[in-house]
């Protein structure tokens, strides 16, 4: 393989003060941000509207109040980058008193036969390089069974990637991200 000419610029932590830089409106600063937790406003959406909610937990099981979560997903028909659905969201965990991130979006469709999923990037103070994970859906058991990426993960750890559906307050999925511990979330070498 050919050597690349230039070295990648190294990553650094997003630090504790990303809030007014990257998520200003969520944190009630009065300047604009480019993306927030609502992926369905102003959009002419097809598909099922869902809420995705979760905490980011540290090695002692405490929620992390200064993490930032980004999601990237296809629309309900399984297409990325379509004009009526941006598919990108960003949420800090510092505005909910229990550290929940909350996304309002549509459930993505299947892309090229993969089980429906949402791509997740996690940043926080104390994380010098970001991590990637994926959200799959508990009500897609058959598709999940066949999914190539899920199948590449040790069966015992697969559950960490599957958000649990509840229909108590609309359609809500719970997806907690555990940085360490017995149920450490699977992070991918993306």
């Amino acid at each position, binding site marked *: 393989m050919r050597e690349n000419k*230039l070295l990648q610029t190294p*990553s650094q932590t997003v630090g504790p*003060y990303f809030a007014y*830089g990257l998520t200003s409106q969520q944190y009630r600063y009065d300047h604009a941000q480019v993306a927030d937790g609502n992926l369905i406003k102003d959009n002419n959406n097809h598909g099922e509207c869902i809420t995705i909610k979760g905490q980011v937990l540290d090695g002692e099981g405490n929620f992390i109040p200064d993490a930032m979560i980004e999601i990237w997903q296809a629309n309900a028909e399984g297409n990325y980058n379509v004009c009526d659905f941006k598919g*990108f969201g960003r949420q800090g965990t510092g505005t909910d008193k229990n550290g929940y991130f909350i996304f309002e979006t549509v459930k993505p469709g299947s892309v090229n036969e993969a089980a429906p999923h949402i791509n997740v990037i996690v940043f926080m103070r104390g*994380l*010098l390089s970001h991590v990637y994970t994926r959200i799959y859906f508990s009500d897609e058991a058959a598709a999940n069974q066949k999914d190539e*990426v899920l199948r590449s*993960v040790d069966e015992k750890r697969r559950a960490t990637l599957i958000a649990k559906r509840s229909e108590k307050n609309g359609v809500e999925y719970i997806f907690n991200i555990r940085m360490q511990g017995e149920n450490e979330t699977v992070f*991918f070498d993306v």
Partner: protein
Amino acid sequence: MNEYQKVDRTTQLTDQRRSKANTEKITIMNKRDWSVHPPYLFPDYKSTVLRAPTKPLIPLKHTLSELTGPVYGHDMIGKYDNDLTKNAIKNGEPLGERIIVAGKVTDENGRPVRDTLIEVWQANAAGRYIHKVDQHNAPLDPNFLGAGRCLTDNEGNYKFYTIKPGAYPWGNHSNAWRPNHIHFSLFGNHITSRLVTQMYFPGDPLLQYDPVFLGVPEKGRKLLISEFKLDLTEDSFALGYEFNIVLRGKNETPFETK
């Protein structure tokens, strides 16, 4: 082989067309280069201890999910968004040393990354962030917000006007001070090229004591230090610092898949 394979990005091909494309050209993304990126666990930076993943990352063959990403256009950029000396003026000029920070965003082959969004945020000249949880006893500047954004141009170039940020203390260890720095966030062409980093200044004596900076393997450290440039400096106005950024790109060595 765990190479990341993909058919060319953005178009979702039918199976039939895809199999044709596979025999013609396959693009492989370069992996994250862990010889320059900091590890997750770096105990001198204490917050990593309970937050660093402990299990190895699971290899993932790239699909459209990884090889697409959000696109932001000029509609997201306001007139003064790249000028932090002007974007928050209330009753005068912000205090401190006015500087220019500019550079080129490329991939590892030196190809420009065009029209990509760069977001920046930083402390003011006194080392104080406008952030509500920053309790450092240094003055806020009513005319300085410390946040901005811009898009790279057709050659991958970007330029910000700002105030040189001050150093500030933090609680990592006794007498701990962050060196002067500006936070950068970039997307590149897809989510695999996402980068959040910090730019430092040449000759800063605090760099040698800063565990955030020292978390970067030695080989990568100089890539985070901007360079003073006289030709970027504007006469009688502001010093110029160059900070070039290299995002992950494609490995373009062609190979047959069938």
